[in-house]
């Protein structure tokens, strides 16, 4: 098999430090907490007075806008330096291996900018609707807040998530292989209500959404989708959108590729045909092996990944009871079932789904078992509510080749060795 490094990676290599070193060091505390049953000496965590048990802590308002514990400082978005011309502005990745449940905290949602973060003053922000409408309109933020709102939890996945893995296993960590996704609760106005306010003419079949940032981001959206479940959202997880997520207002296009969820949304134009702008022609089209390219590949196929254990989150407790967990999602509905294998796909087990199941939202799964301390090959396989089953990477390559960049929803494999360390591999 050809070396994907040759194909994908041509820059200077990062330092050759063991990629596991950081993860193992971080796991040290956990190891200390998992004492053997035959404890010989008394545990100083019990016998010694801890400062927090003796002295007063800070009062209220120490952090008017709360921040995580200092012991969670390693839980951050990360980027891949060699992917980017400059780390200041590029794409970074959600630390999926440090999270649980289904909601992504606002500050950990991955970022992808095409012209940097627009620092928009909401008082100066306007949303215009023009084109094939009876009455072109301008809304202020205050106007938008007077329309009826809805709340929905949706995942947003970049079409290029896992794009670096088309030619083979490259990056060691689900943060890097699968972290271009987040899942938050949005509060917003149904796009349908705004379009009805302007009065879409019968010839209006497409919508152009445009951002206020320096890239002037634009995408064409079919009117049926716009009138179905799209939102013009101003809150995420109950708080205002973060600047990097489109403050003060963004488009929510449930189940469809993240690039269409235009941030800093300032204009909606109704037209009778698509615009074929840069992000839907030169980018976000899927080049197949025969040189033809699929366009308008909007829906995100069902996908899953085991987040723990994974390369950044090795097993640090030795054999015995353990929790294997991960996330799954589909742009076509819910995830009623995830299968898990620990032997590389010879035998599969149905995982336990946990937490609320929303359409086009992340789902959490667990597989609780006793590890025998032997090497494992871990995979997860999502089933969505349409009956679609997540394919293997080779199944995808057979149809699409290796040049499509986008929409890689193939099954991920982690090889776990007898020390509990995990690595990104591909298997037969």
């Amino acid at each position, binding site marked *: 098999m050809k070396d994907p490094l040759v194909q994908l990676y041509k820059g200077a290599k990062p330092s050759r430090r063991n990629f596991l070193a950081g993860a193992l060091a971080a796991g040290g505390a956990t190891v200390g907490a998992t004492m053997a049953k035959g404890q010989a000496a008394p545990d100083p965590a019990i016998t010694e007075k801890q400062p927090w048990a003796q002295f007063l802590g800070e009062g209220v308002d120490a952090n008017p806008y709360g921040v995580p514990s200092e012991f969670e400082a390693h839980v951050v978005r990360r980027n891949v330096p060699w992917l980017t*011309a400059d780390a200041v502005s590029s794409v970074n990745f959600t630390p999926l291996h440090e999270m649980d449940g289904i909601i992504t905290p606002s500050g950990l949602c991955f970022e992808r900018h095409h012209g940097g973060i627009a620092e928009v003053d909401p008082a100066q922000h306007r949303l215009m609707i023009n084109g094939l409408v009876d009455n072109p309109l301008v809304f202020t933020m205050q106007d938008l807040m007077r329309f009826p709102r809805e709340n929905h939890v949706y995942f947003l996945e970049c079409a290029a998530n896992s794009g670096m893995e088309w030619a*083979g296993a490259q990056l060691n960590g689900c943060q890097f292989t699968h972290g271009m996704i987040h899942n938050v609760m949005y509060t917003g106005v149904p796009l349908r209500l705004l379009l009805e306010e302007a009065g879409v003419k019968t010839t209006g079949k497409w919508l152009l959404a445009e951002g206020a940032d*320096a890239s002037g981001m634009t995408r064409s959206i079919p009117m049926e989708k716009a009138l179905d479940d799209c939102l013009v959202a101003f809150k995420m997880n109950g708080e205002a959108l973060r600047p990097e997520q489109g403050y003060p207002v963004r488009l929510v296009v449930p189940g469809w590729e993240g690039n269409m969820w235009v941030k800093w949304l300032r204009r909606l134009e109704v037209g009778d045909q698509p615009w074929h702008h840069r992000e839907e022609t030169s980018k976000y089209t899927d080049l197949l092996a025969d040189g033809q390219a699929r366009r308008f590949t909007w829906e995100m196929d069902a996908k899953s990944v085991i987040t723990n254990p994974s390369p950044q989150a090795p097993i640090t407790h030795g054999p015995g009871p353990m929790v294997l967990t991960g996330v799954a999602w589909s742009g076509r509905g*819910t995830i*009623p079932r995830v299968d898990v294998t620990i032997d590389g796909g010879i035998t599969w087990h*149905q995982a336990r789904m946990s937490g609320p199941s929303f359409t086009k939202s992340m789902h959490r799964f667990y597989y609780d078992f006793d590890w025998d301390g032997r090497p494992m090959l871990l995979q997860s396989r999502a089933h969505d509510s349409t009956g679609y089953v997540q394919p293997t990477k080779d199944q995808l390559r057979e149809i699409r080749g290796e040049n499509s960049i986008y929409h890689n929803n193939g099954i991920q494999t982690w090889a776990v060795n007898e020390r509990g360390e995990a690595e990104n591999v591909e298997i037969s």
Partner: protein
Amino acid sequence: MSRFLKIMAPAGLGTASVLAMAYVLADQFVSDIPGFARVTMVQSADAQETPEAAPEAVVVAVAATEEMAPARPGGFGLGRTALPEEISAWDIDVRPDGLGLPVGSGDVWTGEEVFVENCAVCHGDFGEAVGRWPVLAGGRDTLTREDPVKTIGSYWPYLSTVYDYINRAMPFGYAQSLEPDDIYAITAYLLYVNDIVGDDFELSNENFLDVEMPNADNFFMDDRADVELPLFSTEPCMEGCKASVEITMHASVLDVTPDTEEDTASATPAVAEVATTEVVADVVAEEAPAEAPAAEVVQAAVPDPALVAAGEGVFRACRACHQVGEGATNRSGPHLNGVVGRVIGSVDGFRYSNGFAEAASAGTVWTEVSLAAFLADPRGAMPGTKMSFRGISNEADIAAMIAYLESFGG
């Protein structure tokens, strides 16, 4: 003994209450009007464990129906009518059928001049790209190769996309600063370097639709619903699915995963040293970092704070290429810390054009006066400079810019 959970799926659990929102992906769309209420929360598929594994397993039924936000007949009367001037200020988009193209024209030779002045610093004189910025020319007949080169000539299906994108987003970091004739000229030049037109070609709104893009016919509507969904919608094997398993590829062999915070910062390769890759091109390379750290270094000798603040605003046009402040590094342009008072063309590691190199060997130092002259007319003050910037016409802006730069030493 294996203690793996033996898991069974109770028939009908979970999926029955799901309102499948499968969307029809085709050139034609269903025209269903959404129903009044939509099920947004469905039963938790939570009870898949055997009693012995979880004896107290409880089916958590969280089914709930959210009423859709109500419409109001005749509308809410919110917002106001957009004025024609407002619409024309923002509605700059251009479509393949020519809708939105302004009146104007430009020829290949003019385009070369404008391109070299505004675009070549990132894209190269002939669209071949500098460092890992996007390649704009060449790449024909590479789409089936292992390493396809997707350029305007080899990949882009519509010429209107070129005009629209240049008009709305280029030059990067100084968007919407070009006039229609400039954009027609640049577009003509890009057609020329892609061997689509001859060197005597002039592009205008009149002949725009006559240009045929080489790869126009090689795009087709998403066909996953036909090609993939049936294939991937069958009940999979659960036991004895293969005889053996071998690892065929290790990511650790490549060793390209960043490991620590420090590595993330220190391992960033210099722009010019890194080749463009396909994934890079799509994920990041088309972006310059638009948000340079706006470090606020305040020194005793800083001039009027208001002037410095004004200069920070003026500097926005420069940030795509130049950094200032703590940790500033060379990018498309050299870092500008302490630029006033330093020898011209003297920043380590930056490859200057000849004029700068000569000034450096002569030991000439940037003064407020010489910098002001350069900022007013870069190409006039320093013939041959690679800097793609027309200059600042307003003297007050130049003074503010210099005050701002001096706040970073010098």
